[in-house]
């Protein structure tokens, strides 16, 4: 009798509520991880559709499809959605699912905050998109067209309701990511299994711990700048209004004080997970663990003192230009440490090239190109030519897409069997990789040439001599967009009919998460595992 009762109680504990209520009320780190990742994936496709319209406009010179105002709205929404809606939530999803498993904790430290942090996101996305759709029924002048850093097009304090909506969306996104960051820090510092010393933590956990501190320090500055913009627009303050003693350059300083750390916020989680994948498929232990931890901290620190390399043409005094040039170039030192550790990881390894490994190697190659071009850009003399040209667009897509998205796809393929308990179709995965590599480079290599030739960014039309490069780039972009649909099919096929995955999943995989069955039970590590 007592036995039966405990069995029942146990059962209730094991199983979440059924149906939609499970997903609305869940505080379980695995459920929230799945929610975050799904949200990120959906936003990835929305952001992609928006930019397809932009590339369609750029297919030929002249204005065919879009008005310049509409064009500005589309690339602004694309960028905000990709950075804050797709990449960051996807990285948060990975940390939710994986960090407790990797450090042997039963859950995140603040499960309820975790739930709120997630459910803020759909509302933030709606706020961004609503003014875009309202304009078609004649309400307002559309979404914000100011670019993702709120000053990329001419600063127009009078811009319509779209800007206000974007500002509120930024506040919500900030709230969500700060709460998520606090959760990561508390979880990692307080909830590790006994024996899991800091310097034993997997690199993904380290990278996220550092990312979380960067979020906590940088995100409030972004929110504050957005708030000042809002009060300038509606409440009679003059932070950025030159006519009344404010200074528009101050807006750029505030935004980039956040903006540069933000690019590392996007990338650090990826830098953390790549060594896991490289080590697994090279069948070697992680290479240069300590060096990587220190390099990550160094990059975190440096990223806060280099922001004005985005403003080298804004009239800084020469001494400041030189300082920002050298400090920015200094970032490539710890960055190269990471790159060489990745190369060390595969050096003389028994490599095999499953889909996750392909994407991880693709990450190393493309990110390398992004970082190398980044090394040229802060050169004060060179920057005067490249600033606000397509060279910049290409540079940051090699880092954001070639680095960020490639890395996250590698992670998705690597841990998908762990999440779902089923293997995906390896052939299709490889096809997805090669299609992505080819179309990605087809999209962005021509943008180098157009940019070197002087094509400015953020403009809906272009001079005739850029026609060929833009045509190739647009066709590449359409292919890139289409190839990503294959990913949807692969994931669905995996979930519905993939062959069963083992707990170990990959032959060389290491880490606590691979000591669990696939998929892991709803509750894991309620008693902490033994860490060697």
């Amino acid at each position, binding site marked *: 009798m007592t036995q039966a009762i405990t069995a029942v109680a146990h059962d209730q504990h094991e199983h979440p509520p059924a149906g939609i209520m499970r997903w609305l009320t869940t505080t379980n780190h695995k459920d929230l991880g799945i929610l975050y990742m799904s949200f990120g994936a959906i936003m990835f496709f929305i952001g992609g559709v928006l930019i397809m319209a932009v590339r369609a406009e750029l297919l030929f010179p002249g204005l065919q499809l879009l008005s310049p105002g509409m064009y500005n709205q589309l690339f602004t929404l694309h960028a905000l959605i990709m950075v804050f809606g797709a990449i960051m939530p996807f990285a948060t999803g990975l940390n939710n699912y994986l960090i407790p498993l990797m450090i042997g904790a*039963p859950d995140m*430290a*603040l499960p309820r905050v975790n739930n709120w942090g997630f459910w803020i996101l759909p509302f933030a996305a709606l706020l961004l998109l609503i003014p875009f759709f309202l304009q078609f029924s004649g309400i307002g002048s559309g979404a914000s067209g100011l670019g993702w850093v709120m000053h990329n097009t*001419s600063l127009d304090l009078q811009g319509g309701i779209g800007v206000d909506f974007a500002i509120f969306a930024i506040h919500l996104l900030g709230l969500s990511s*700060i709460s998520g*960051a*606090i959760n990561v*820090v*508390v979880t990692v*510092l*307080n*909830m590790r299994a006994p024996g899991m010393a800091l310097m034993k933590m997997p690199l993904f956990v380290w990278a996220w711990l550092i990312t979380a501190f960067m979020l*906590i*320090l*940088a*995100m*409030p*500055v972004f*929110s*504050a*700048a957005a708030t*000042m913009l809002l009060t300038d627009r509606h409440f009679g303050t003059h*932070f950025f209004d*030159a*006519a*009344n003693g404010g*200074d528009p*350059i*101050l807006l750029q*300083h*505030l935004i980039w*004080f956040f903006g540069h750390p933000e690019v590392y916020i996007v990338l650090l989680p990826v830098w953390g997970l790549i060594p896991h994948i490289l080590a697994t498929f090279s069948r070697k232990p992680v290479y240069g663990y300590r060096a990587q931890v220190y390099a990550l901290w160094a990059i975190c620190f440096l990223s806060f003192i280099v922001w004005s390399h985005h403003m080298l043409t804004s*009239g*800084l*005094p020469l001494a*400041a230009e030189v300082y920002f040039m050298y400090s920015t170039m200094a970032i490539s030192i710890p960055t190269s440490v990471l790159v060489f550790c990745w190369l060390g990881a595969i050096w003389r390894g028994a490599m095999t090239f499953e889909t996750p490994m392909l994407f991880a190697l693709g990450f190393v190659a493309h990110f390398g190109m992004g970082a190398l071009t980044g090394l040229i850009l802060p050169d004060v003399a060179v920057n005067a030519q490249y600033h606000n040209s397509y060279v910049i667009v290409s540079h940051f897509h090699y880092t954001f897409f070639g680095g960020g998205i490639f890395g996250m796809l590698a992670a998705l393929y690597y841990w998908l069997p762990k999440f779902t308990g089923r293997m995906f179709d390896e052939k299709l995965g490889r096809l997805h990789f090669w299609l992505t590599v080819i179309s990605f480079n087809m999209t962005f290599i021509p943008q180098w040439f157009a940019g070197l030739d002087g094509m400015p960014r953020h403009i809906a039309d272009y001079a005739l001599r850029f026609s060929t490069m833009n045509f190739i780039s647009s066709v590449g972009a359409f292919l890139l967009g289409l190839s990503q649909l294959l990913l949807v099919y692969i994931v669905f096929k995996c979930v519905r009919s993939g062959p069963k995955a083992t707990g170990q999943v990959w032959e060389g995989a290491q880490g606590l998460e691979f000591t669990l069955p696939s998929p892991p039970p709803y509750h894991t590590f309620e008693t902490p595992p033994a860490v060697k």
Partner: protein
Amino acid sequence: MNEALRNANRRLTIKLLLLVAAATGFAFALVPFYDLLCKVTGLNGKTGGAVQIAQASQADTARWVTVEFTSTVMPGMSWEFRPVQTRMRVHPGEITRISYLARNPTNQALAGQAVPSVSPGWAAQHFNKIECFCFQRQVLQPGEVKEMPLVFQVSPELPAEVQEISLSYALFPVSG
């Protein structure tokens, strides 16, 4: 989760929230800090407010500095606005007067605010304005033409390598 862990988590959360508050405070503190930095270093070519100068006696007649005057009418503003003279040579220490001409060609009264900027930026702190139309907003009646004075002095402390200074005014519309 046991009680001790829960308390530890709560304490750490509060500390991190304080860090968030500090970062927010830091962002707002940057505003006055930035203004101060610009004033002290002349960053951005920002010039200070009105300066009292007793005598022009110490004019350094051995040295010449060329001062250039330009103007920009910002979008949304419909005045005509230009300096009466685009360049002049002055001695450091000498007090000089020139003026800008403004005309309101529209049929309604309009207010404008001129925002000065000096380049090279590091010369800004040596460019003293004794009287300037940029200290207040200016209002022009429909069709009115106004000659707006500027009285300035280039400080004798101006570094010797600076031989030319440009003074630029951006004219912004101000409502009300």
